[in-house]
């Protein structure tokens, strides 16, 4: 399977978002004095969670992948050039 970049990115933000939002739900309100009384963790955590989930789902459809040189047209041309000019055996 090829690794679509959106999978790890989506997963990480979903995890972080869930962590933050979860904390924001159960935390004591005094923690948010510095942030002008706003529950940043909850709101922004939810945003990150949604972003992460969307990214992950897009990744499942998979076009943003890493590919081997032998599977990409341009990569093959580079290999060919290296052999032709004697840079590599």
């Amino acid at each position, binding site marked *: 399977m090829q690794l679509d970049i959106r999978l790890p990115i989506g997963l990480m933000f979903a995890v972080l978002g869930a*962590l933050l939002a979860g904390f924001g739900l159960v935390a004591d309100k005094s923690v948010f004095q*510095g942030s002008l009384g706003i529950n940043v963790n909850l709101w922004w955590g939810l945003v990150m969670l949604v972003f992460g989930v969307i990214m992950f789902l897009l990744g499942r459809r998979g076009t943003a992948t890493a590919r081997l040189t*032998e599977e990409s047209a341009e990569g093959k041309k580079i290999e060919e050039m290296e052999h032709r000019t004697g840079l590599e*055996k």
Partner: protein
Amino acid sequence: MKLTYLDWIVMVVYFVFVLGIGFALKRYMKTSTDFFLSGRSIPAWITGLAFISANLGAQEVIGMGASGAKYGIMTSHFYWIGAIPAMAFVGVFMMPFYYGSRARSVPEYLKLRFDEKTRGFNAISFAVMTVLSSGISLYAMGLLLETLLGWNFSFSITIAAAVVLVYVFLGGLTSAIYNEVLQFFLIVFGFAPLVFLGLKDAGGWSGLQARLATVATANGFASGAWTESWSHLGSPQSNPMGIEWFGLAMGLGFVLSFGYWCTDFLVVQRAMAAKSMSAARRTPLIAAVPKMFFPFLVIVPGMIAIALTYKSGSSGFMLPKKPDGTFEYNMAIPLMLGHYFPTGMLGVGLTALMASFMSGMAGNVTAFNTVWTYDIYQSYINRGATDQHYLWMGRMATIFGILVSVAAAYVATRFNNIMDMLQLVFAFVNAPLLATFLLGMFWKRTTGHGAFIGLLAGTTAAAIHQGLTLPLGAHVGVKGGWFGAMHIYPSELAQAFWTAIFAWTACFVVTALVSLATRAREEKELVGLVYSLTERPKEDRLPWYERPTVLAVIVLLAAIVLNIIFW
């Protein structure tokens, strides 16, 4: 700044993903092309975001915050004239040569276009500078974490170096690129709430403007000096940066920015990893979009910091002062993170900072291992070996590069001038290089002798200019003046811009003259390497949003609009 278990969990999650990506990509590193060029298979939006993130080291994030506090919205010039035009130019006009020539690195393009000695000069100077740069990044990170969180310097740099080593060793350029994209999103998510909270504290944009007017008048400038980016460029005395519009436009807008974005392999490498010519050309243009809006993410917090220091908001945030009475500008962003962010969010913000240091380092290391393996090792030491041998060498170069970076970080603790010195060396080398590339790509008559001697002349001119001038209030030494200060510049930035202008001009003139005096190459050898001898890439079969020229025009117009809004 106090961290709780939640912040630690956030950081651990990040490290797990970063290493996990490295491990997951190992299986795709079968050939040297996989390792150094990602198999030339990466889609444009990824290379675009990596292009911008490779450039966005934490020094930029912290430095731009500091400059935002020190100079106000004028700092955005580093982005809106210091980056966007150069990025549009490299995408539309220079990528066809970088990508189309099948060069595997910037020095290799110089070899194809000119000759070995020009390639050697560039390869060696770049390799040294990039690995030292990586060390400086590491040093700056260690210092910041020590100051902010009390973490042991050796501990933080060892962990960071080890993590970068593992993921680059395993997954090569692809790993670096994936992690750079991850870093990009972390920066956006980690910093956006800071802008929101800071603005709220300062009374919205109009409240910020009013406070900044106080800052400006308190420092002896017109009230709009911190919020208007062009209106006060008539003379060096009327703005906090100490420059006039010509020095800014030519020094920063042209020489330094084009010099960096068009020739620095660190960023160009990301475009070279793209899956097609059109993707490679679109890479810098796609990167230009977030680049345009980054001032709001990194500069505005700095402006907010200084605004609140002069006239405090409801939360009482203030910038601390150094023992000599000047502000600790570099602490603007880190302290604001600590002031406004609750635990958890703070973890995200700090992780974003660490991520930028680390991916800046990874960018330098991947550029180094490629230039070392292809341009130094393969060209001068061991040509014609097997592909697997070069792949192995790339991995060894990664280890070596990281070790040298760590050593450089320790050296930097002894000589705190090292950052300034590196900036200086970059200016000396990058500015003339731009002239070499422009003449090389757009004038078929340029010869190898011309290029090489021109580079030497440009670098020498830079050294002479630096030796004959000093910024206001500086002592003779790294800041210049070693031949006797004939001219005093109102600020360091002004001196830097003018050094760049002189270096570029000297290189340009000398390269042109020497080229005319030496034998030109056969035109058929230069096909694909020079503008007049290469077919323009065809765009008519692409939809409008994939055409590089269309995207470039849109990007430039947007940048102009931003400049007008903040005139």
